[in-house]
């Protein structure tokens, strides 16, 4: 299938010489949700701005649905919707007018039914005749989304859609994203909340200091890098790990009441059966057994940390 977004070796240096993107390549298939995860200043907004035509690339190419963003900018941009990171809206304008304006700006003929559908979908219909300045921050962000969707884009960029947004609205936002995905819209969202990527993305890209460190299927990523921990909780506390269990590289915590064992979920033998047998042979009495999986956060912190060590 033709990728909906194809970025090849994209570089961007700002006027002051700062290189914000250092050769980013990324292919995105239609219909997926991809989360670009990275700390502040990583280059997420720059990447999106360059794809959308707000900044010009220093080198490299970008194609949207097979259309080059420079040579064939009309076709490329018609397919894109952008929800910017900052809440940029005209305070005195009415909600419905700004959405109509966006639709027209993108070359789509007026269609009140389509506008109504979008406003209803975003719970903005009741507020359609309000001035933007009368809306709460969360509502304003919905207006931004409505504007971005007004011309029925195939590829939607959400630049930190839930930054500074309360928990409830964040959940709403995730639902909106799920709904769009169901309509076949491809979604690229940036975030520095790991839980967000973990909750809604199909693939995760990690970006730091202008480089895309990896892009991987979320499940694969977690399986590949995800170590699991087995906590063996004991009835009586231990002073030291018994000699008989030394080969398992266990750590003793919670005042000697828990033995923690790390293992790789994808290994042929996890060693759990043997461990438990040896534990009972060593005469220890089990109170409970718990397993834990590393979150994306652990993985992410590990990656960025590795990167920092490599560059220093």
């Amino acid at each position: 299938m033709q990728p909906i977004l194809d970025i090849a070796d994209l570089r961007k240096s700002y006027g002051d010489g700062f290189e914000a993107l250092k050769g980013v390549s990324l292919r995105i298939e239609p219909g997926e949700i991809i989360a670009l995860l990275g700390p502040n200043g990583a280059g997420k907004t720059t990447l999106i701005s360059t794809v959308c035509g707000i900044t010009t690339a220093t080198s490299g190419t970008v194609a949207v649905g097979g259309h080059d963003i420079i040579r064939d900018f009309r076709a490329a941009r018609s397919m894109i919707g952008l929800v910017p990171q900052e809440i940029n809206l005209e305070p005195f304008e009415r909600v419905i007018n700004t959405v109509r304006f966006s639709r027209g700006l993108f070359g789509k003929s007026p269609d009140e039914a389509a506008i109504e559908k979008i406003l209803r979908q975003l719970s903005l219909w009741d507020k359609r005749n309000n001035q933007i300045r009368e809306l709460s921050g969360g509502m304003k962000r919905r207006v931004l989304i409505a504007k971005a969707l007004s011309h029925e884009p195939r590829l939607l960029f959400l630049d930190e859609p839930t930054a500074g947004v309360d928990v409830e609205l964040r959940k709403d936002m995730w639902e909106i994203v799920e709904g769009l995905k169901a309509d076949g819209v491809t979604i690229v969202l940036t975030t520095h909340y790991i839980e967000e990527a973990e909750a809604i993305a199909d693939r995760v890209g990690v970006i730091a200091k202008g480089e895309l460190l990896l892009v991987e299927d979320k499940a694969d990523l977690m399986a590949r890098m995800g170590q699991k921990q087995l906590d063996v909780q004991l009835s009586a506390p231990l002073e030291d790990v018994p000699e008989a269990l030394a080969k398992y590289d266990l750590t003793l915590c919670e005042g000697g009441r828990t033995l923690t064992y790390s293992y790789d979920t994808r290994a042929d033998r996890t060693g759990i059966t043997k461990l438990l047998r040896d534990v009972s042979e060593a005469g220890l009495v089990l109170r409970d057994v718990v397993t834990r999986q590393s979150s994306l956060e652990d993985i992410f912190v590990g990656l960025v940390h590795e990167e920092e060590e490599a560059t220093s």
Partner: protein
Amino acid sequence: MNWTAIRAIYLFEMARFFRTLAQSLISPVLSTSLYFVVFGAAIGSRIQEIEGVSYGAFIVPGLIMLSVITQAISNASFGIYFPKFIGTIYELLSAPVNFLEIVAGYVGAAATKALFIGIIILITAFFFVDVTIAHPLAMVAFLLLTCLSFALLGFIIGIWAGNFEQLQLVPLLVVTPLVFLGGAFYSISMLPPVWQTISYFNPVVYLISGFRWAFFGSADVPIALSLMAIAGFTAACLLVIGWIFKTGWRIRQ
């Protein structure tokens, strides 16, 4: 051409104008009326006729020009500066429109607003003085070209301006003096020869002269020169805008 987009920008800008219609009209109507009271009635009664026209009527074309030029510049410069200022420019830059279409939308709306106000002032003038229009078609043509060319200039100023002070600077320091010294309230022929010569370097002289010719059939400079001046000015603005378009100056990083 993405006509739908041009139309969207144009209507959006016009909506802003109509939302504040009272403010948009009160100030020019009031100031024009004041000009008529002060210059037309109070001082004008002591000034003899100029080229066979009463002083009150004589200043009508200049007054219209003054307002139209000021309005065209301020509407167009504000129109494009505002999205830059509040950040909504991202939408223009990411839309499937080229710079020409953006210019057409903003400049078209600004020129329309200026035209609107020019017509209002002309109507106001009818209440104070007897105005005859010798060449109505030429009058309309001059009015349209002036609205358009100064809206283009305003657009350039709006792109250039980095803050609100700069936005006011050019109209205040350059345009207003040029219009006042451009013969809005007097005939160039009334000046001493040295000042007459200097005046011929002021482009606004040609505009006002041409516009006044359309009203009264007499002019300070040949009408062909006036036409060339305004055509040349429009072309210069278009060239600058074309260059901005090519380089992305002050808009696209």
